[in-house]
């Protein structure tokens, strides 16, 4: 009995984006999640960011829906201001000791009015705004904190430390302050633990040469981010701290605290190059005249679509990229900063800048070490949780998984991928049952209102003095009383308080209300609560409307009480007008087939298939080649000496023997029909036999292919080979005859230029790996590497250092001056080649007679991606790779529900990254497959067939393929399962054949026409 509950719950430590994602995925699979977070809010690092690369998406805009989803999910139990102190037991039955610290504010009473913070006399540096703003001892972590209730920092509270003050208690209108609150220790029994403890920025205070401690105009990247943020302390208006002047020149110094073995940071922080590029672009958008320069060693724009972003910064925003090391910074009298920097050739230059941004690297959080000790986990050399090759999301302790940047630097999508991936791994210790939300609704029977005349109840909230201090709420309530169809109107002190919610339910009963309007704060936070309340009283939850008279009225017009009151009246009248047209909406159940289709039998496809099959689902694994393995068959070594082929062999064996997996090799997808939960796919085998498979989800793992180059005399002599061929050569010891004196490697063959404006990501590490392997086997060989930027991101940096320390020579070439190659014995099929290139250090041409020239050729998208994309109705990016729903937060999903992507089909990535993404795709698919039904949203589009002329504009504008023209009837048909309710199709329908439930044309019309705007005569322009 007890074991059962454990196996149905997971503890997630850390509520940043990775923790949130892991929690949501688990909860959607029916698992109870204990989300334990140290700070008073969920959100982690993302809320501190202004924009995100490479799309310049607003960080808060994309995060906040996930935050609210997380807080509202019934299966996610949030433990804020809490810490995990220890774990005992075995995987599947772990006992976790958690301490919840005292908050001193009763969250059930706090209404987040902010009076306490206003009155609190203790001013402190704000952590969220990296000390650029002051906060109080009682506060919210940041303005949009979730949960939104206030908490007291006990170490700063005057009463708690010195026994005096109690001001907050005096002003609190709801009596929420509780100085007697105590820390609590609880034990949670869970099946698995996922660590998502995140990462810290490097503190540059220790690096003297950058004068961070002494010059106020030298800031860290995170500080600069807060400056850029529109909701930050400077409102997005960047100024120098020294004189309040807007900078006109800006220098970014890269690798501050990264790639520096001197301070035990011999790894690349992976995200800082892109972060600096983003900041330079955003800063330039804020300040049109700004000249930004980035001082770097290598620009590591290795992610999907990153190089295009880099190119845009350089060529559209005029950002200057300078490959040089900054040796010193001197503060000038006017506060400007003179940089002394050294080029590769040793020459030194000095240049003054108005401001300097230190692109600080990422490092483990200080608590990590203590946590590792108390949880008995191993750390790597740099203090990150240690994971192993082939097991990228596991820690050293079974049943404890890690995601996000806690085991190595990651950007946002990688964190999200690892979070979902960790869920798939954790699932192995869990007991999964298929959920049926359609039957789980335990709401009271709903009152029938269709056909009844609207009977509207209006509740106008004081929100203490938040609204009532400005708006005459009694007057507003009285006005509402007089509106047509309003049966009842009253003002209430706190509409959201438990007792008031009861009042609302009573009034529904007393007055037979069938529509409820609450005039209070914002529906974005409170609509769900009120909907739930009226639902408890027997009304369909959609019969509710809110007028936002606090956030968008009383708080914004504090000096104009009369006008704020009349605005409130209008807003209430508009809400009542809308409410009259509200209809009960139903969330239709859509059944989900438990089977899954995985397209592609490489490592990614097999991993995803295994995770799904292990979770109890029948999987069809379709591979067009005759055998499984894909590109993995060509990976023959790993940095750490582990054997990829052994791993591959085991994986293939597991796949082939798994009874939940049916492997179809030599098979091609011919047709895909249906939608989430209900796909049917026509598969054709090598002998043209066809078969129709039905399944609930699809995972696309079609891989990539090695670019076929014609550059560098490839194909004209056996001595010019690709890295893949070279790897095989190393493994089989089939080198060309004679001594291997000189081996030259050329990077970026086909990548980062022309039609492939992307980095193939793995080639630098692969070249380093093979070079090190060569050195093992042919110690005497000279290794020369010609590259543009060396992109050995993350912990691969170590091996690059090792290679260079061992004497390999690295030359940097520019795309307009690539290495030149000539045959030394033309006509000889085994001719050696002479490679000439510019040595940027010596600034002269070097000529190498190479016994072997190894080309790092690009990873191409398979051409037939476009055929599959069309069948699945999912998009490709300009490089022909599958384009996910959102590059940041939905990295393995497609906009079309029920279809997921992983591995090289998504973008170039290495083996461990592919593994993590495949696990993530499996977990994301499980969030659907673990349900017998899903409920379509109530707010979706609907068609009036008699008005539809079948012009298909709706089909064209729908981002989710949720509406189509029926080929027989020739009218639009909405797929309830796929529709997200944005209404783009509705507004694009000239015929008025489409409408959006909950935001119908009729309702919006009524709102527009709700106010009687008296014609104003005799007033002219003022």
């Amino acid at each position: 009995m007890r074991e059962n509950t454990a196996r149905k719950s997971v503890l997630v430590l850390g509520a940043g984006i990775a923790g949130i994602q892991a929690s949501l995925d688990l909860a959607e699979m029916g698992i109870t999640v204990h989300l334990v977070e140290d700070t008073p809010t969920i959100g982690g690092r993302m809320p501190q960011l202004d924009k995100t690369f490479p799309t310049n998406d607003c960080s808060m805009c994309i995060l906040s829906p996930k935050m609210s989803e997380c807080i509202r999910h019934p299966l996610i139990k949030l433990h804020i201001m809490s810490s995990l102190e220890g774990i005992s037991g075995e995987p599947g039955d772990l006992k976790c000791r958690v301490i919840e610290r005292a908050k001193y504010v009763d969250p059930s009473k706090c209404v987040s009015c902010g009076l306490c913070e206003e009155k609190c006399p203790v001013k402190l540096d704000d952590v969220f705004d990296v000390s650029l703003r002051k906060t109080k001892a009682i506060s919210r972590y940041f303005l949009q904190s979730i949960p939104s209730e206030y908490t007291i920092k006990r170490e700063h509270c005057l009463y708690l430390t010195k026994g005096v003050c109690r001001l907050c208690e005096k002003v609190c209108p709801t009596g929420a302050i509780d100085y007697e609150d105590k820390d609590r220790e609880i034990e949670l029994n869970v099946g698995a633990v996922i660590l998502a403890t995140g990462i810290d920025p490097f503190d540059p205070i220790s690096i003297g040469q950058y004068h961070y401690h002494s010059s106020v105009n030298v800031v860290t990247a995170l500080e600069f981010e807060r400056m850029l943020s529109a909701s930050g302390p400077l409102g997005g208006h960047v100024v120098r701290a020294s004189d309040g002047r807007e900078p006109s020149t800006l220098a970014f110094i890269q690798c501050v605290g990264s790639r520096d073995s001197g301070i035990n940071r011999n790894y690349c922080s992976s995200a800082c190059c892109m972060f600096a590029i983003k900041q330079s672009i955003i800063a330039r958008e804020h300040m049109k005249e700004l000249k930004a320069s980035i001082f770097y060693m290598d620009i590591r724009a290795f992610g999907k679509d990153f190089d295009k972003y880099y190119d845009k910064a350089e060529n559209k925003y005029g950002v200057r990229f300078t490959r040089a090391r900054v040796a010193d910074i001197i503060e000038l009298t006017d506060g400007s900063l003179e940089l002394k920097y050294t080029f590769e050739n040793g020459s030194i230059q000095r240049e003054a800048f108005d401001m300097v941004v230190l692109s600080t690297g990422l490092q483990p959080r200080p608590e990590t070490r203590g946590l590792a000790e108390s949880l008995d986990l191993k750390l790597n050399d740099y203090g990150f949780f240690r994971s192993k090759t082939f097991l990228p999301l596991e820690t050293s302790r079974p049943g404890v998984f890690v995601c996000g940047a806690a085991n190595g630097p990651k950007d946002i999508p990688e964190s999200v991928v690892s979070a979902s991936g960790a869920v798939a791994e954790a699932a192995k210790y869990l007991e999964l049952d298929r959920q049926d939300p359609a039957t789980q609704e335990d709401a009271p029977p709903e009152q029938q209102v269709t056909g009844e005349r609207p009977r509207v109840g209006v509740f106008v909230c004081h929100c203490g003095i938040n609204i009532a201090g400005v708006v005459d709420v009694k007057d507003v309530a009285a006005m509402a009383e007089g509106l047509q169809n309003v049966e009842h109107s009253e003002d209430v002190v706190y509409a959201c308080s438990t007792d008031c919610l009861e009042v609302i339910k009573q009034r529904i009963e007393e007055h037979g209300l069938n529509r409820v309007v609450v005039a209070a704060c914002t529906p974005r936070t409170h609509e769900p609560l009120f909907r739930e309340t009226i639902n408890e009283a027997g009304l369909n939850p959609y019969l509710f409307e809110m007028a936002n008279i606090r956030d968008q009225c009383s708080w914004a017009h504090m000096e104009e009480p009369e006008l704020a009151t009349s605005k409130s009246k209008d807003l209430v009248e508009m809400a009542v007008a809308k409410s009259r047209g509200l209809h009960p909406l139903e969330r239709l159940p859509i059944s989900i087939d438990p089977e899954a289709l995985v397209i592609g039998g490489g490592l990614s496809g097999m991993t995803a298939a295994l995770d799904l099959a292990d979770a109890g689902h029948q999987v069809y694994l379709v591979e067009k080649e005759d055998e499984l393995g894909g590109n993995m068959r060509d990976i023959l070594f790993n940095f750490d000496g582990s054997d990829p082929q052994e791993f591959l062999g085991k994986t293939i064996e597991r796949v082939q023997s798994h009874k939940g997996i049916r492997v179809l090799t030599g098979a091609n997808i011919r047709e895909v029909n249906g939608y989430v939960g209900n796909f049917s796919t026509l598969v054709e085998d090598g002998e043209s036999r066809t078969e129709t498979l039905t399944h609930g989800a699809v995972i696309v793992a079609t891989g990539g292919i090695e670019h076929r180059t014609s550059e560098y005399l490839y194909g004209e002599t056996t001595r010019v080979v690709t890295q893949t061929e070279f790897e095989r050569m190393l493994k089989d010891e089939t080198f060309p005859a004679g001594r291997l004196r000189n081996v030259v490697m050329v990077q970026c063959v086909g990548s980062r230029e022309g039609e492939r404006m992307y980095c193939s990501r793995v080639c630098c590490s692969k070249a380093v790996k093979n070079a090190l392997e060569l050195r093992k086997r042919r110690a005497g060989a000279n290794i020369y590497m010609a590259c543009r930027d060396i992109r050995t991101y993350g912990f691969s940096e170590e091996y690059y250092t090792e290679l260079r320390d061992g004497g390999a020579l690295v030359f940097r070439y520019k795309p307009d001056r690539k290495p030149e190659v000539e045959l030394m014995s033309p006509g000889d099929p085994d001719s050696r080649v002479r490679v000439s290139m510019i040595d940027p250090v010596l600034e002269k041409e070097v000529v190498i007679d190479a016994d072997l020239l190894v080309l790092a050729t690009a990873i191409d998208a398979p051409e037939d991606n476009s055929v599959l994309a069309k069948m699945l109705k999912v998009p490709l990016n300009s490089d022909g790779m599958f384009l996910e729903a959102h590059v940041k937060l939905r990295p393995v999903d497609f906009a079309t529900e029920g279809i997921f992507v992983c591995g090289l089909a998504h973008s170039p990535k290495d083996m461990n990254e592919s593994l993590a993404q495949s696990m993530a795709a499996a977990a994301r698919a499980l969030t659907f497959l673990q349900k017998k039904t899903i409920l379509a949203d109530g707010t979706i589009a609907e068609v009036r067939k008699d008005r539809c002329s079948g012009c298909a504009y709706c089909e064209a504008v729908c981002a989710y393929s949720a509406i189509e023209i029926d080929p027989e009837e020739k009218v639009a048909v909405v797929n309830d399962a796929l529709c997200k309710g944005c209404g783009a199709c509705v507004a694009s329908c000239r015929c008025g054949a489409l409408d959006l439930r909950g935001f119908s044309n009729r309702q919006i019309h009524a709102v527009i026409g709700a106010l009687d705007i008296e014609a104003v005569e005799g007033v002219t322009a003022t």
Partner: protein
Amino acid sequence: MVKLKKNELDRLICRLAGSYDVYAPVDIDGNVEFARVSSAEDMDQSRTVTNLSPKEIFFPKDEVLFEYDADGIRPADSMDRPIAVWGIRSCDTKSLMLLDKVFGSAIQMPKEERFQDPYWKKRYDGALLFGAACAEPLSTCFCNWFGGGPFATEGMDVHVTDIGDAFLLNPVTPRGEDYLESLDFTAEVSESDRKAAAEIAGSAEAVMSPPVPIDGLDQLLPGLFLQEEVWGEVSAACINCGACTFVCPTCHCFDMQDEGRNEKGRRLRVWDSCMFPIFTSEASGHNPRSLSRHRVRQRVMHKYSYYPVNYGEYLCTGCGRCITVCPVNVDIRRTLLKLMTHDGEDG
């Protein structure tokens, strides 16, 4: 009969304007239609057939029937002056008589149940109509099919003939006669005036093509009702633009529309057209005339069968406006001929 010198016309108009709202043909941006005038100078009497018919004077394109609020219903502002029209042709005065049968007194009803539209009656009953003789009938004129002619006087109070330098004003009704008697600036009509008028009448008659006998059409049409093919044929070119119904002096279908919010608003009556797909769309969503041919059939049936069955004459005066205005040259005369000569067998 009296004579009015052309230079005295303005005097007449001004005098009329003293107690009537006076309407006459006016050139508005190249379109000649009936509009309010205050002097003879505003008028353009050159057209035999105006672009728009004068029915709009008595049956506006849109009119507010009443306004309402929480306190009840208020009738729309009522006009207090009677209407006078100058220069209205016989096809149009005839059309007003046809419309009056509908709005003024529904004669198929028992007397006590007869509905009289107050909005129509208020305008039409007291109106004073100075009709104009047609000296130059057009090739599209076919009033003679319906018993009319260029010098017909039906529906007029005064019949006016332009004889060059003067108008001959001939009273048709007692109301017309009374008004003419009240004028002190008219002249005696001479024999040569009469002769001139007769000559004009004669040559006008001569221009008209001989009428096509359409007696019995109203009885014939119901038999064709279900013959889809013939309706398909006569409606093939029609693009249901509805322009014919808007310029027609006898079309009188209307739609009721309510405008308002909360507890106040108003009810309007606006012109409608049987050519529009929505015309017979029912609340259930069913539309018995969803196809073009059925709407064309409705227009023909209404004018040449249903109305005659109810009221004893065709709902068409042969003004020819629908022929002139049609962008695809659907000619009602050809349509009627086609239907009359149809062999009665479908397919």
